[in-house]
């Protein structure tokens, strides 16, 4: 009924020598990410903006997968699309109505803000270009398996991991406690 070992697993595509195919895919996903981000900024309906943001997140995840970073790519989808986007949606829906969708998105002071944005971008771009990091040769793509990530998390970074885990569990229990106190009546 189903396939056996197909030669098209995601990781193998990225490791193949077909640089051209990769750069084509990369361009597609990069455009998707940027278009999503621009749409998120420029759409008038807030929920549309969130949906565009989800497209942007998904595009970024695809780029991660393309680079062979399976864990980061899938975690990106799980965390950003599955949790953060939903959180934003809830925040938007619970705090305001449809809002004023007729008004132009361009505010009066767009020239000044645009200038500030260009200057900031220029400074950052110059800093990156001038720094030593841009002179370094491209390292070979490391072969990272899930097992290596697991080993690193469980051996070298076990303390930070435990601390974060403890923090998150406390936050979770705190949230439950806060939610519980609200209704004292019997259920």
């Amino acid at each position: 009924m189903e396939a056996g070992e197909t030669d098209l697993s995601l990781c193998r595509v990225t490791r193949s020598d077909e640089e051209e195919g990769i750069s084509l895919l990369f361009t597609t996903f990069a455009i998707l990410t940027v278009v999503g981000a621009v749409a998120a900024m420029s759409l008038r309906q807030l929920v549309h903006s969130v949906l565009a943001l989800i497209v942007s997140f998904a595009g970024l995840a695809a780029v991660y997968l393309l680079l062979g970073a399976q864990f980061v790519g899938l975690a990106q989808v799980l965390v950003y699309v599955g949790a953060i986007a939903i959180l934003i949606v809830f925040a938007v829906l619970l705090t305001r109505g449809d809002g004023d969708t007729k008004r132009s998105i361009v505010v009066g002071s767009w020239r000044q803000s645009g200038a500030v944005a260009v200057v900031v971008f220029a400074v950052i771009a110059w800093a990156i270009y001038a720094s030593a990091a841009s002179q370094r040769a491209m390292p070979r793509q490391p072969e990272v398996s899930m097992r290596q990530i697991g080993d690193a998390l469980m051996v070298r970074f076990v303390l930070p991991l435990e601390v974060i885990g403890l923090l998150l569990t406390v936050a979770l229990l705190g949230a439950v406690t806060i939610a519980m106190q609200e209704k004292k009546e019997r259920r």
Partner: protein
Amino acid sequence: MGDTVDQFFVTLQQWIASHTPVGLQPVISTVLAVIAILGVFALLFAMTTVLERKGLGRIQNRYGPNRVGPWGFLQPIADGIKSLTKEDLVPRGADKTVHLLAPILLVLAAFTLFAVLPLGRNMVLVNLDAGVLFFFAVSSVMEVAIFMAGWSSGNKYSMLGAMRAVAQMISYEVPLILASVTVIMAASSLSTVGIVERQAGYTGVLPHWFLFTPWGFAGFFLFMVSATAESNRSPFDLPEGESEIIAGYFTEYSGFKFALFFLGEYLGMFAISGLGITLFLGGWSAPFSFLTWIPSYFWFFAKLLVMIVMFIWIRGTLPRLRMDQLMNFAWKFMLPMALINLVNAGVWHFLPHGVLRWLLCGGLVAVSYVVLGRGLTQGWKLEKRIYRFAE
């Protein structure tokens, strides 16, 4: 002989692919596998709708569909033609684009879930290193699709249904993932294929499934309860509670788009049952060592059908939960139980084999179940219900 039958579909796929140009072979064999997945699970969906309606009919003391074809088993074809020929209504106040995209995204995501499920020996579309993570990542996209459907309909019932669905899916995702983490710990692999391989082998006639450990037993039930909630099925079907909010997030969908929601929901249920089978029930391996001659895919689909029947049975028997009961159950019972179970799996791993391990870990499961259950029901006034009009 047994091996030939077992690998029949894999061989068939390779044979067809070998008759195509060399450069195209990987693409062709993937396309073949995708077509097989689409066909088989769409067919299973059609079968399940009949099974469900007949099963529910039995439970409710009526016949169920029995007019189209032998014993009514061609009913899905009639339903399909009906949904295709019906008018596709889109409300004037709806957000047209999002309204159209929502069912498509839902079905796409639901089908994508099957990519990492091993349906038999060597029968997996992609053997990802992070297969389980992939599954959860894709299933979280379904939440977005459901929200899109509810919001874009421009109807308060749809909106309420979508909010309920998303809140429920997020709440139950926590125990679902925590229950799966125990298996990932025990198998020390995130790959679905690796997890199935880890459960291979038999002691006497009994298999080494994770279900047959104290933490696996608790984990399986936590997983399946969360899975029921994730697939919005009764008794967790508040998002589409007919008596309260019409049909929830797909109230404003008609014709084929409605059928797509139906399809997406059932595919989600199959996929999550499939993951449950992969994680706890040994995937495609046989339940007894003397039954290993039966092909692996048979066992996978047999287990899947058993799960589906369980789902139908539960739907026919249990009443729907109230929203606060749903949330209390998730956060006050499922979550602590899953956290304790996580510790339990670690304890099990480090204790030496023997009776002591069984007593300690089994005891921990039993004690935590009783204590948490008591805690949940504390303050409930359980008394005989008085019917004012029915008696």
